[in-house]
């Protein structure tokens, strides 16, 4: 690890200023990803600006009936919040399915959203990687890609975003509040992340000096309350997803689907909102056959590689299982 300076930020604007003034500086949240990457030599900031002592640690109702979650709120506190558990179960479940009790006590909301990919080449500085060192190539395509993307990837990078939390936020249409060098703004979570395209080095649309200050969760509705997060992984606990789904469903009195929300994890460079499946389902009967058809439609765009082709069926099965549970029907 390279030596670095350390400063505690006292106000969001000051933190942003510290970063714009020093190109080699980075914000430090819980450090569970950044310190790890520094130890691996993947990151080597000159200055760490600690943003955990900013007063961004509140979970509070908004004027419009939603919930505003400060960027410094620890993952464990958010998962345990009774309002979140009751109104947005998929969000609490996504958080609780991630990492370990210790890590969730450290990890912050802001840091969770900006954690980097777990692609093994990205984490190994002795290997080429377009995301870490643009232009060096992508060995994953012909190498270890079992855990990597099947949707929305590019020839330059097939990394996946590892966050469970972000998948649930995508399904909920959450918004991210930002304080940046040009002032304050808000973005839909869906617009925060980028596809890898020609430049996989950038995971998000953010400027390096943009500070996430909060995440805004919209007013709870039936398809938020009747929701769940389901995660497939290689061991029962404490492992990243091989596939996951955040889903919410509400039914009309005649049993047809009035609203459905589906986002997939571990399949793309960003949380994958399954819009095609959602529009195919809306207005139709809530049956396992419909769920299967919609899941197949969504995954029709998949471009799997030999070792991650199983994710196509896995993701379809996750969608069908989640929606069947939410609709209270037997899986086909």
């Amino acid at each position, binding site marked *: *690890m390279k*030596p*670095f*300076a*350390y*400063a*505690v930020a006292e106000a969001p604007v000051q933190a942003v200023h*510290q970063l714009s003034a*020093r190109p080699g500086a980075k914000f*430090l949240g*819980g*450090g*569970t990803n950044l*310190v*790890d990457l520094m*130890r691996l030599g993947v990151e080597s900031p000159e*200055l*760490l600006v*600690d943003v*955990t002592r900013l007063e961004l640690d509140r979970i509070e109702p908004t004027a419009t009936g939603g919930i505003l979650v400060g960027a410094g709120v620890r993952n*464990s506190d958010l*998962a*345990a919040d009774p309002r979140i*558990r009751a109104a947005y*179960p998929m969000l*609490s*479940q996504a958080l*609780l*399915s991630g*990492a*370990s*009790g*210790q*890590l969730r*006590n*450290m990890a912050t909301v802001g840091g969770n959203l900006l954690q980097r990919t777990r692609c093994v080449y990205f984490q190994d500085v002795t290997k080429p990687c377009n995301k870490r060192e643009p232009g060096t190539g992508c060995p994953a395509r012909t190498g270890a890609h079992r855990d990597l993307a099947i949707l929305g990837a590019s020839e330059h990078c097939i990394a996946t975003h590892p966050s469970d939390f972000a998948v649930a936020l995508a399904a909920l249409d959450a918004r991210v509040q930002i304080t940046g060098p040009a002032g304050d703004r808000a973005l839909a979570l869906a617009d925060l992340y980028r596809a890898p395209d020609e430049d996989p080095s950038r995971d998000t649309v953010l400027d390096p000096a943009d500070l996430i200050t909060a995440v805004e969760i919209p007013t709870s509705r039936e398809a938020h309350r009747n929701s769940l997060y389901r995660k497939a992984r290689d061991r*029962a*606990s*404490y492992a990243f997803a091989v596939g996951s789904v955040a889903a919410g469903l509400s039914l009309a009195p005649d049993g047809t689907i009035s609203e459905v929300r589906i986002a997939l994890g571990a399949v793309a460079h960003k949380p994958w909102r399954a819009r095609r499946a959602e529009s195919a389902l809306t207005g139709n009967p809530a049956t396992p056959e419909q769920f299967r058809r919609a899941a197949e439609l969504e995954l029709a765009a998949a471009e799997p590689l030999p070792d991650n082709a199983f994710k196509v069926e896995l993701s379809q099965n996750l969608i069908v299982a989640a929606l069947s549970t939410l609709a209270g029907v037997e899986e086909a």
Partner: protein
Amino acid sequence: MTTTDTRSQSTTSTLRLQVNGREHELALDHRTSLLDALREHLGLTGSKKGCDHGQCGACTVLLDGRRVNACLILAVTAVGREITTVEGLADGEDLHPVQQAFIDRDAFQCGYCTPGQICSAVGVLAEARSGWPSAVTPPEGGVQLDEAEVRERMSGNLCRCGAYANIVPAVLDAAAAELPAPGIETAYHEGESR
């Protein structure tokens, strides 16, 4: 408090850490993890270095009463926080109920992961007491620590000897002894282990 250069150029700080009720002044390179500060600078070698990447839990300590991985925490960020290591759990000669339960249940083999397991279990009991759910907690009702709950909540602590069959009952014993609090029931029955 931390004394840092106002222009944030210095790569070291002189800082005070509060460990097991005692304050220590240390001059540290910012790269120093809390784990290295405890082990190499304060001689508290109870907390162990396993993977140094947050993957094994051997370094688990309590920060303001919450369990964390000391290997991924920079010591300089722990200023003003109360740090408790395995050395700080006993009350004089009286072992902490979790320590006693680990001995009574023979919940270890080589012992390397044990300090982390014990600190983690102390954290688990506090979390259960606060009604925090886990991934296996049913949506309705309070937290009932049973075998499935303990296995899920302790999943951040790996034991390469595989002493889990005794660790789980030890944690449940400690829960039963420590938590007659309302809303928390423990349900471990002899011979039920998987």
